């Protein structure tokens, strides 16, 4: 059976699924709310109705705030949560409904089916990540400003977009692995949330240690933490560059191997 048929079928499923359109709308609503709240807060500071926090100077300058929100857009948890839900619906629900069983009973190849899903979800990840940047750019321009945006900054932004996509692919690999292990929607979402919480815990611990120390570097090696580094508008040192290249690659390779092994060796209910 041709691999292109699996891709076509999965693309057909994506096109017909409501969640593919509903989730970006939710994302848009949440991001818009964040911009509106920050905008109101900034206006209150400007009018002097509220005293600003002296340690947080970022919010006092519209241009800096707009840039910061743009660069850190994909490291917001919203996108990660959307990817979780996408994995649970797109992979786990197919096990639960028996559609995976139907496809296998028609001679489908398990590795082919897996990669078809992975490619489709990677596509969703790319679209959602770029969409998040575009949305943040539009809202930053509307609510704040991006005055004096240089070519160098634009270069950093492009790098940030590429790195965010790359790291999000490692996140989707982890969530797909969980979906192939758990094989039901609720369980997958639960396992993904658990993983996300552990990742956040690692990020919190990493932040407690001085950057560059071995302990901090170990705790930095979680994809959600790497997302925050992806939004950095400046030069990386060699260690950070290697970390940003190899850590996501490690997660992509290992998680895909575990998923395929599990799928091939466990019976489908």
């Amino acid at each position, binding site marked *: *059976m*041709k691999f292109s*048929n699996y891709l076509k*079928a999965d693309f057909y499923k994506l096109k017909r699924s409501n969640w593919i359109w509903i989730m970006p709308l939710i994302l848009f609503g949440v991001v818009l709310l964040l911009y509106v709240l920050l905008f109101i807060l900034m206006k209150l500071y400007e009018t002097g109705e509220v005293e600003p926090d002296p340690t947080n100077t970022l919010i006092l300058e519209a241009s800096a705030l707009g840039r910061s929100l743009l660069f850190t857009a994909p490291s917001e948890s919203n996108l990660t949560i959307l990817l979780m839900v996408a994995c649970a619906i797109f992979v786990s629900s197919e096990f639960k409904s*028996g559609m995976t069983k139907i496809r*296998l*009973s028609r*001679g489908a190849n398990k590795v082919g089916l897996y990669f078809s899903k992975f490619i489709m979800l990677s596509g969703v990840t790319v679209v959602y990540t770029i969409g998040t940047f575009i949305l943040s750019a539009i809202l930053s321009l509307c609510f704040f400003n991006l005055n004096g945006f240089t070519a160098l900054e634009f270069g950093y932004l492009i790098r940030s977009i590429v790195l965010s996509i790359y790291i999000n692919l490692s996140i989707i690999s982890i969530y797909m692995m969980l979906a192939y292990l758990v094989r039901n929607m609720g369980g997958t979402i639960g396992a993904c949330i658990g993983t996300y919480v552990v990742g956040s815990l690692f990020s919190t611990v990493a932040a407690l240690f001085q950057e560059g120390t071995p302990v901090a570097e170990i705790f930095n090696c979680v994809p959600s933490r790497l997302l925050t580094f992806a939004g950095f508008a400046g030069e990386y040192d060699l260690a950070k560059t290697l970390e940003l290249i190899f850590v996501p690659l490690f997660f992509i390779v290992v998680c895909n191997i575990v998923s395929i092994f599990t799928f091939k060796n466990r*019976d489908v209910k």
Partner: protein
Amino acid sequence: MKAITTNKLTKVYKDAKVVDEVSLTLNKGDIYGLIGRNGAGKTTLLRMITGVAKPTSGSLSIYDDELELPQDEALKRIGSLIDFPSYDPSFTAYENMKFTATSIGIKDDERLKKLLICVGLDPEDNKKAKNFSLGMKQRLAIAMALIGNPKILILDEPVNGMDPTGIYEIRELLMDLNRKCDVTILISSHLLAELTKMATCYGIMSNGKLVREIRGEELNEMSRPFIRVVVDDIKKAVPILAQTFANGNDFQILPGNTIHIFKEDETISHIEDTFNMGGVKVTEVAKCDGNLEEQLISMLGGPKSHDEIF
């Protein structure tokens, strides 16, 4: 001509042998009824045949005109409904058909619509499958199994939850597919009466084993109307039987001094007189209707008694 054979196919889950060395033969053109109590291993056997579950040991061969095919190639010629009706609940009937067809590379949309009409579903209906009744879900699953004109159909409880009209329609559809399109069918069902209306051979499973395979004609033969006679001395009765009924198929000796006489023109009074004249006392005699369902139930070990709860 063989369509499917299994050779000592076995499935072990943890410590439980769910299917135990099953060697089954499904011939081309047959409607093979697989029967057994709940938990006998029927569904697991069908899951292994359709490639959804891996056998622990044993082998499976699927043929096309005597040529054994590799399993993944063979599965393309098999349509199946295993365990429960599988469908995407968020899709309409047509979308489910389209998704399955796309996955196996079939583009004929008109045929998909015809299949839905054939099983009694409306291809234009926008109702999501999650809102279907159980019978509608079964119909959809059968339509999905028919995508790609399969040469073999493997159906696990296909009429579960259907109304009598639906059961009749699906039976007619399956029999038409078998007769007109030469589709070989392996079907498991708890509805024995329904199964006996279409099956041409039967496999009886018990505790994971295939305890017997029997042709439909053989079962019909065993299910002829008969006269049940109980005598006081079976040893004396045997020579009388041999003398009276030249054909050995006309009677059957069973435990408990019981004799079944299958001769249709025989009367109770003549049988009583014959035995009495030979010095054999008849203690019980009765005419019994032949019943395929009862015959199959007796092969499964007879019905469970409920006396203890009354």
